[in-house]
């Protein structure tokens, strides 16, 4: 019973996507944006808890973090960073296309974003499966195999495997995993936008959902911007 209140039955000129409780599209768009920003604020704190856990264990076990970062391939991390920046670009482009009413451009930008997000996940999958096969799990299940230990640089190979390596990887899998879930959700959302774009829903007068999903996507990008150096480079 969303948009068929009796009060509006007579108002034929109401735009199709204007919800019954808004006066006009402008207020609706601004309200949607504010809602998304508030949601992003809570996302920041959601990840903030994990960043705090990272900070605590890093501050108190710097040697552990230094040792553990040799397990991560910075080239893959850097490649994924560029992939996400590219997807942010195409997401921002999709907003521009929607605002200008370019249906084809919008669709292409959305599809490119989805494609790049998938590339990101494939790389992430390769990283995860490589580690898990080598016994580098999280917490108690982190027992790196001799093969992966042999690939470490000499400086690290000389050291004993730190007792709390599993805690480092717990934080690593938690943070990158939660981020990965966000990427998955983003793909679903962009897919939904593609479906609606094909039906010609969006244009200069109505592009709130595109804007909202793009904002969300940029936040996902921003989180990765911090995760990359903190895990892969330090």
């Amino acid at each position, binding site marked *: 019973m969303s948009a068929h209140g009796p009060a509006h039955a007579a108002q034929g000129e109401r735009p199709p996507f204007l919800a019954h409780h808004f006066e006009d599209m402008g*207020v609706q768009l601004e309200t949607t944006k504010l809602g998304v920003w508030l949601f992003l604020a809570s996302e920041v704190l959601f990840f903030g808890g994990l960043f705090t856990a990272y900070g605590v264990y890093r501050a*108190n076990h710097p040697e552990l973090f230094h040792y553990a970062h040799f397990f991560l391939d910075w080239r893959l991390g850097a490649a994924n960073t560029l992939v996400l920046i590219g997807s942010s670009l195409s997401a921002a482009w999709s907003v521009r296309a929607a605002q200008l009413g370019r249906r084809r451009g919008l669709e292409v930008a959305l599809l490119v974003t989805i494609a790049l997000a998938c590339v990101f996940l494939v790389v992430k999958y390769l990283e995860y499966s490589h580690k898990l096969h080598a016994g580098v799990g999280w917490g108690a299940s982190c027992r790196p195999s001799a093969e992966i230990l042999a690939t470490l640089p000499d400086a690290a190979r000389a050291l004993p495997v730190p007792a709390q390596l599993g805690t480092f990887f717990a934080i690593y899998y938690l943070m990158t995993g939660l981020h990965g879930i966000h990427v998955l959700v983003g793909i679903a959302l962009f897919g939904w936008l593609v479906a609606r774009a094909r039906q010609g829903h969006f244009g200069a007068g109505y592009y709130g959902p595109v804007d909202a999903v793009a904002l969300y996507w940029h936040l996902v990008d921003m989180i990765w911007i911090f995760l990359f150096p903190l895990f892969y480079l330090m």
Partner: protein
Amino acid sequence: MNDSPVSAVAAVHAAPHVLSVRALLGTAGVLALLTAATVAAAQVDLGRLNIVLALGIASAKATVVALYFMHLRWGSRFHLVVLGGAVIFAVLLAAFVVFDTTEYQGDIRAKAAAAPGAGAGRP
């Protein structure tokens, strides 16, 4: 926070802000450059400065994303307050907790040194 709904409406009626192609590509370019910079900076051993530098570059990248891709430069001032407030509280959480845990870490090390792997024995 003084943007009344009226001004918000006015802002929208005055046509949405559209990012130019140049701004889009420029932003992405700056982000790619900063990514290269952070990788390069990590190759040099600067001790504790490394992490400060990495966080600094990451913050700069995040700011660029927020200001341009997320339209924060042109959008409602309150959006900036929301994002900034969230970041400030997240930083306060991390700062307080990291500060406190490092303060009492000696007591954990001492205990850890006592009984690796096992709980203390019952007398």
